[in-house]
């Protein structure tokens, strides 16, 4: 899956200095480009319009069993691997008992398939402030990740990203939707 192919076809890519994850000193700025005009009348869009053209992954789009492409056990309703969403209580990142077997099943699968990697996407409901919800979503994803690690999954197979309240699963504005949105989604990335 060429998920990344369109993501950064940015007209301005030359101006984006490279990532700084290995070395903090790489956080870079160019400051010589602005002119005296404070106005934005002449600003063109950033070029992102033609850029990131994908939302979710192809596997997610398959609906009920988002990881079905990985193997038949992921779409067998009797197999805990068919469950790929862990739900949470309000303002909590504690994994509820109901989901312990689901996480254990995925952990076992990942231990048995060391080439497989998953992204744990942490999410929250819309209430409260957005950046705090990003932090809460990450805590949720990290609780799931640490349970997996305890069960022997290698760190290199696990990636955490938090979207906070920015990518709701349900678009309502009531408790029924909020329950569905306080979640961690386990998204298999395919074998390396």
């Amino acid at each position, binding site marked *: 899956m060429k998920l990344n192919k369109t993501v950064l076809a940015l007209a301005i890519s030359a101006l984006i200095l490279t990532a700084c994850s290995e070395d903090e000193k790489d956080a870079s700025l*160019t400051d010589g480009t602005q002119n005296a005009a404070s106005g934005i009348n002449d600003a063109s869009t950033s070029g992102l319009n033609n850029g990131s053209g994908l939302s979710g992954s192809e596997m997610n789009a398959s609906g009920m069993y988002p990881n079905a492409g990985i193997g038949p056990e992921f779409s067998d309703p009797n197999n805990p691997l068919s469950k790929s969403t862990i739900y949470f209580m309000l303002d909590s990142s504690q994994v509820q008992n109901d989901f312990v077997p689901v996480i254990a099943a995925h952990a076992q699968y990942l231990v048995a398939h060391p080439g497989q990697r998953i992204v744990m996407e942490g999410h929250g409901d819309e209430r409260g402030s957005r950046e705090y919800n990003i932090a809460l979503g990450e805590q949720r994803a990290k609780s799931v990740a640490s349970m997996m690690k305890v069960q022997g999954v290698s760190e290199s197979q696990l990636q955490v990203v938090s979207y906070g309240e920015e990518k709701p699963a349900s678009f309502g504005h009531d408790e029924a939707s909020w329950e569905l949105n306080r979640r961690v989604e386990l998204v298999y990335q395919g074998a390396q």
Partner: protein
Amino acid sequence: MSFFRRILLVGLVSFYIPNSHAEMTIEITEGIESALPISIVPFAMQGASGVPVDVSFVVDADLGRSGYFKTLDKQSMPGRPSTAEAVQFKDWQALGQNYLVIGQVIEDHGQYNVQFQLFDVYKGQQLMGYRMTSSAGELRRTAHHISDLIFEKLTGKKGVFSGRIAYITSSRQGRQSTHKLQVSDADGFNAQTIASSMEPLMSPAWSPDGRKIAYVSFEKKSAAIYIQTLATGERVRVAEFPGINGAPSWSPDGAKLALTLSKDGSPDIYILNLVTRSLTKLTKSFAIDTEPTWSPDGSSIVFTSDRGGKPQLYIMSSQGGEEKRLTFSGSYNARGSFSPDGRSIAMVHGNGSDYRIAVMDLATKSVNVITDGRSDESPSFAPNGSMILYASRKGNAGYLSAVSLDGKMQQKLVFDGSEIREPAWSP
């Protein structure tokens, strides 16, 4: 006296926004009781090719929308003077008008000479008069500038009509959403998309000089912080560490960015020096620390932390050191934002079921809840400190709203067709 009546639903003004093809309405839902009666007479226009912007209409809308003024509708005006000699003050006195604005817009080789005069109707005196030159493209800006001048003359407060607002919109098409970072004039006009992505955009923050916006983008399916120069559209990525890269906030001198990173485990507050590119870790708790905001003098940082179990605001020196809890009332206090004078902090205040905007007086520590929504968020002070812009929702409709610090004056900015959130008022 009639002009002491409360203004309710003063007007519904519909604006066409060229770039976004969205219709925005601004609605004054509550006004102050002492709104001043003012007449903005339609400006006389002279020009071969016409005048592209109705300057007096824009001024009328600005002043009316502020809640401080009650403007007279055109039909009720006893005349349309455009020179001082033509003004019959008695006619305007009879209508209970305190102030009168007249003016002219004259085209001259593609440029426009705009002049206006402000009068005290009872004294029959001119309070102010200006003449300015504007290009066609700048006419709307000139009109906002006139509104600022009149506003400051009559209220003693700086006007905010020529400012801008940045905000995030998202619209859904099936399973996909388009997220946009937009910048518009303070009245919602001239909305321009400065970044657009199928993945979320978040947390726009203006540089103190108003030329750049820092924001968070998930365009690579993980968070990164960018700084974009508005005039050119150029941008640089300043943070892309593993985990959270969020909540950028500029230091008042524009040289540093406070931000949230979780690369070492739990989310902590860091200071990124934009000149030397050095990164300093400010908080080191095992809890969530996020949403840093600088005091206007640059000495302190206020942030949200759940180290006490629930999210509350804490304050510390921007040089590091002791962290002190600031908020004690309510189970949820987050996303602090300093007033321009540094004396108060706006925040999202939760009581268990509703999330509203509250303002804390830093001297007395008293907290005043000033909105009454169910999920109000992202408070941002107007540069003159008189209003707070925030995002709100009623039912399925999300909108921006502005409220005076005492909660008595409210205006609502409604966009059609997309979610709108995270407003930030330009410096």
